């Protein structure tokens, strides 16, 4: 067991060492180190949210939903533009309603006609949905950069300045974001574990035919799953939008969430969360601490590790553990 897992162990050990090395070698003051760590975690929360959307849909319907990023953009645009006309809370509720309608339309017009088709056909269909949402979203809501004002102070606050020299700078908005994400994750896991609808969702995820045989309607379950994915996209969109403004590039976060689901396992919501955090922290750490070392060592022009770290890590994971951290290992009995 141990012997077979050695590449995974090695990779984990390397990540761990990389995590503590800057502190151990005193390459960074502890206060700054913690700031980088927190920054990474905050980015990770956003990756986690988008990745969760992927995992939810993949688990329940076996569809790799390429449109998750576009859904994030669409939801963010809806909130940003609606909030110009009405209070933010109302805009958020309305945007959620829109995402539910969208889920229903996708089930009706895309999934239902393609039921029992190859996975590739469904993937292509979601690719179509992506382009449609990108375009339609901009037609409907406009293509400028919009702001989402959450009413939380953006100025960073200094905390623990009597513990560490120089204190730690944190952003209140980031904290709120992390809190909301944690609440959402808890609520979803209670929903999945304790309610009969949650049980039905897990049943559908495991076996479509058996689920139907005990009276669970597939179509309604799909609408529910896509609605939940819409909700997750909405939360991610609001956070992202509040931080960086709502613009087309938001839909590209889906590309960042791809390595996250590879790392966490396609079918695991917990994996998506942990994977997001690992990648968020990993890339920030690599950028700040590994970057300068590499620049010096190989006489490079600049770092830019943040841009590729996630993909390289995902690639390594694909080599040593293709099912991801928490994914189901499929053993086909012949």
């Amino acid at each position, binding site marked *: 067991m141990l012997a077979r897992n050695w590449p995974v162990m090695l990779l984990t050990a390397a990540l761990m060492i990389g995590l503590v090395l800057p502190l151990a070698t005193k390459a960074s003051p502890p206060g700054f180190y913690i700031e980088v760590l927190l920054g990474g975690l905050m980015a990770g929360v956003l990756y986690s949210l988008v990745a969760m959307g992927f995992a939810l849909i993949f688990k329940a319907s076996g569809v790799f939903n390429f449109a998750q990023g576009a859904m994030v953009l669409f939801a963010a645009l809806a909130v940003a533009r609606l909030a110009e006309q009405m209070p933010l809370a109302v805009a958020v509720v309305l945007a959620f309603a829109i995402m539910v309608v969208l889920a229903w339309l996708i089930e009706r017009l895309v999934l239902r006609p393609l039921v029992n088709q190859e996975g590739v056909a469904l993937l292509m269909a979601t690719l179509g949905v992506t382009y449609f949402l990108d375009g339609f979203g901009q037609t409907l809501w406009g293509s400028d950069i919009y702001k989402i004002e959450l009413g939380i102070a953006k100025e960073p606050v200094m905390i623990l300045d009597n513990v560490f020299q120089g204190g730690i700078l944190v952003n209140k908005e980031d904290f709120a974001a992390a809190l909301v994400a944690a609440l959402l994750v808890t609520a979803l896991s209670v929903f999945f574990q304790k309610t009969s609808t949650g049980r039905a969702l897990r049943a559908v995820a495991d076996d479509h035919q058996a689920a139907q045989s*005990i009276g669970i309607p597939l179509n309604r379950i799909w609408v529910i799953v896509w609605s939940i994915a819409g909700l997750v996209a909405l939360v991610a969109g609001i956070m992202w939008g509040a931080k960086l403004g709502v613009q087309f590039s938001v839909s590209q976060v889906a590309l960042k969430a791809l390595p996250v689901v590879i790392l966490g396992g396609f079918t695991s919501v917990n994996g998506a969360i942990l994977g997001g955090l690992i990648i968020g922290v990993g890339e920030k750490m690599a950028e700040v601490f590994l970057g300068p070392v590499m620049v010096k060592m190989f006489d490079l022009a600049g770092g830019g590790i943040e841009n590729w770290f996630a993909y390289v890590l995902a690639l390594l994971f694909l080599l040593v553990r293709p099912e991801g951290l928490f994914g189901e290992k499929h053993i086909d009995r012949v």
Partner: protein
Amino acid sequence: MQQSELPEGRLHEAARSGRVGEPILAIEGVSLSFGGVRALSGVSFDVREHEIRAIIGPNGAGKSSMLNVINGVYHPQEGTIRYLGRTYRDMDSHEVAQSGIARTFQNLALFKGMTVLENIMTGRNLKMRSNLLAQALRIGPALREEVEHRAVVENIIDFLEIQAYRKTPVGRLPYGLQKRVDLARALAMEPKVLLLDEPMAGMNLEEKQDMCRFILDVNDEFGTTIVLIEHDMGVVMDISDRLVVLDYGKKIGDGTPDEVRANQAVIDAYLGVSH
């Protein structure tokens, strides 16, 4: 024809003969084809309340297709199914389930990510009425409801003698036990009619005897009407009240075990004749 022995004292016919009632399920002129392949042609038969009705036939005779038609997985091109005064042809699987017809699967279709208990609890899903929020918070009526359903499930667990495996993920159980969980999940729906797709396929003799005993007990104690497909002729002859014999998608025999045993067309289909 191979004969499996049954646990003694289970010769049921005399014991149950008074219980079999009026037809509750009737298959009328059902034809089903996939593209050019005709799986069923003009099959008609009925199932009476409380009886054990078997569908037998050689490989590829259309037995599983028949079960899938009743279950709503396939929609026949011709013919109808009459059940409890309702006539249908293109009802979906989940609607059939909601109307009180449960089934088990030949190739296990359990929810692998769940424990034995959770798997069986899914069978109660249809009967859960309380709202989501109450369920999530485990308050008031939702808690009471969960406890009630749990009691029913525990009863079934005792009945099928799988108490020791409640918390085990189903994937880790041996095949024979997984078959029992499959049956337990179907029973948890408290169905009027139970469809069993080769309940004894791939089992050893001891497991087969256990399964026979469970099927008879279900029928006796819960009064569930049972429609089963089986390969093992011996077993089927021993436990069913009446049999339908299919061959190449056509009905070639229908009657009590003795009648079917004496039917020349059935003997030919099973043993093969030179034409």
